[in-house]
């Protein structure tokens, strides 16, 4: 059961990484980040059977942070869209050195 859970978690995480790296739409990248967070949450829960309840406690924290992050992140995305009429990451490079 553990092996399957970890395999699923790894698969979700990898999908998330690939999504972050390859997609250009800020919303999708954002969603992929959420996917990665939840993949990690899954491993926490799965491993808490072996190592104690702290993993599940951690999951609660991660979900809290993820919720806050989603609020702030979406607000930023909307602000950018209002400003530039696009959420394509390739066009958002003001920090270019």
């Amino acid at each position, binding site marked *: 059961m553990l092996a399957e859970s970890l395999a699923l978690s790894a698969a979700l995480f990898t999908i998330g*990484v690939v999504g972050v*790296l390859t997609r250009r739409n800020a919303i999708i990248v954002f969603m992929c980040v959420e996917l990665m967070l939840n993949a990690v949450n899954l491993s926490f829960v799965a491993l808490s059977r072996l190592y104690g309840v702290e993993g599940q406690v951690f999951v609660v924290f991660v979900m809290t942070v993820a919720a806050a992050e989603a609020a702030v992140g979406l607000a930023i995305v909307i602000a950018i869209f209002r400003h530039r009429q696009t959420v394509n*990451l390739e066009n958002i*490079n003001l920090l270019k*050195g």
Partner: protein
Amino acid sequence: MLFQLNAAASHPLAGTVAEYVWMLPLLPLLGFAINGLLAALSVAKTGPANPGLDHGTAGHGAVVHTHGAGVHVHEVGAGAHSHVAHDTHDTHAGSGGATGDDHHPVARHRYAGVVSVVGPLVMVASFALAVAIFLAMRATHGMEEPFVQRYFQWMVTGDLAIDAAFQLDQLAMVMVLIITGVGMLIHVFSVGYMRDDPGYPRYFAYLNLFVFFMLVLVLGASYPVMFVGWEGVGLCSYLLIGFWFSEKANADAGKKAFIVNRIGDFGFLVAMMLLFANLGTLDFVGVNESAGALEPGGALVTTICLFLFLGCAGKSAQIPLYVWLPDAMAGPTPVSALIHAATMVTAGVYLVARSAVLFSLSPVASLTVAVVGAVTALFAATIGLKQWDIKKVLAYSTVSQLGYMFVGVGVGAYAAGVFHLMTHAFFKALLFLGSGSVIYAMHAAYHRTHSHEDAQDMRNMGGLRQWMPWTWGLMWVATLAIAGIFPFAGFFSKDEILASVFARAQHSPLGEASWLGIPGSAVLYVVYVFGLVAALLTAVYMTRMMIYTFHGPNRTGDRERDHLREAPWVMTGPLVVLGILSAVGGWFNLPAISGGALGPIEGLHHWLEPVVGTSSVRLAGEAAHLEHSTEWILIGVAVTIAVVGIVYAFARLDPKRLPAKRDARPEEGFGRVLANKYYVDEAYDRVVVDPTVNISRGFLWRGIDVGLIDGLVNGAAGLMRGFGRAGSWMQSGQTGTYAWVLLIGVLAVLGAFTFGNP
């Protein structure tokens, strides 16, 4: 602590006027301060926008120097030959008005009156004090110890403690009298010669400053204090040679003098360091006391002396460093008289005499001095035979006579060398001032007619006796003196040097020494012959100069001839005094065989005995005196040679057939070599200057400076710029790229944890 006078209270000069020896140099320094201030004031007030004052110079352009915030204007003449007598109306009022009306009147410098008083007055005061001190010293009847006054501690580093101290002894006294006396006369002459120069206060400021440094040089109680004066006179020499610096040749001549002197100063410095390293002291008193610790004839004392002599060769224009002196004639003529004939260039002779105790320990170094002196005397005399510039003749003559002085001090006849230094100061100052008077007249004549002929070229002169009888007569006195005709000053001093050489060649410790494997006596005989030949040539070239300048027909030009006239009294007055000194100056030191008919027998010898007596005996031996018959023969030979030279010149040189400069044809054969000064300047350019410049340009500038030093700095900057560019390339602003880099980093760290540390 200032003026902490701790001269030995028991010294015979303590409590006398000699306590005021410090005022000797301070008086000219005061003159420098006042004149310098006036020069600075006039520079500040006189700008190009002030056309009233510098009518003459405005046309020639004023040189503007910007120093920081203020703009300083140096008014300058049109160049080397526009300085004297911009207008002779003032000096010859009423005598030449008819043809001078088309002339620009040039206002004198606004402070000319003050400067004319201050400049010479400080010299008169200084000379009066010097005479008073001299009388006080004479009253001590041959004091044995020098009178040393310490003022304050100058510098203390480690074992070396140098006091700012003056030392008064018989040798310094002679020099002080010459410097202040002849200097005073030349200052007075300058009032006439330079009064119409726009830089008049500046000129007197430099001249006063020179006298200050010269007195520091001869009064200094230690080598370092002397070195201060030594460098100071070099500085003033540079400033005065390049006095009319707006003309590049003059500025270059100043630089040449300064740079060539640096080579000599290097020798002086090394000698000082060697002295300190081995004797632990640099005071003259201390060196005199501890010189006995040096091995006589040893390599160390020889090295010290040779380095000292390198300094002398630079300052006193001896081979191989003589080349600057003829070029130094670019300065005003009174400067040539004071600095480049009478005083500064004799500092080398003074240094050898001052260091007699060292030189007498090293026969090899002493013989070197004598040989260099003899070769220089002969070499310069030959060049003097073919020069046309009246001042160049005198310049080479000076080099030649300085050679004589070095022969004297080289063979240990220190008193004879100083004697010739003194008589030379008289007659050479007279010759230079006389030539200045001639140039003044020539220049005024050419200036009035707006001619651009050369006022210093003897081919443009001729027959000046008619217009300038005083200058003519007095310059003949000096010519007879330098040629060595009895009873003029040069006869006694030159004869004594030659007789000393002959005596030491016959029998003396110096003659028994060997120089580069040659027996000393053989060397000395050769030196004697060189001296004789140089004496013959001296008579020839001096008579030649007199013939072409004052005798025969005039070649100045038909229009210019009417404007030739004698210089004003303020200029001929000093000439008269110098003329008297050139005539009787030798009588201070008559040879023993004269029986004392004209003055004291060997007066200078006895005077200098406490300073150089023992050193002289060490080289000459006790029995230095010649048989009387031999001495008469030597005198006869010397005078005959001088007379032959004069007669030969009169017989061979025909001023009637000499073309004026504009018609002159170049010399041929060996004469051309002489006229071109043996091409020594060209050879130095080729061998020393050009390689130095090329190495400086090609290697030091392009290689070291641009290549290495700039390369390092620019390379460091370039490296930083490269780093910056790489960093800025990494900051693409693309979050995707950052994410990739992050992933790679994470994988790398994970990989390292997983595989790197099994």
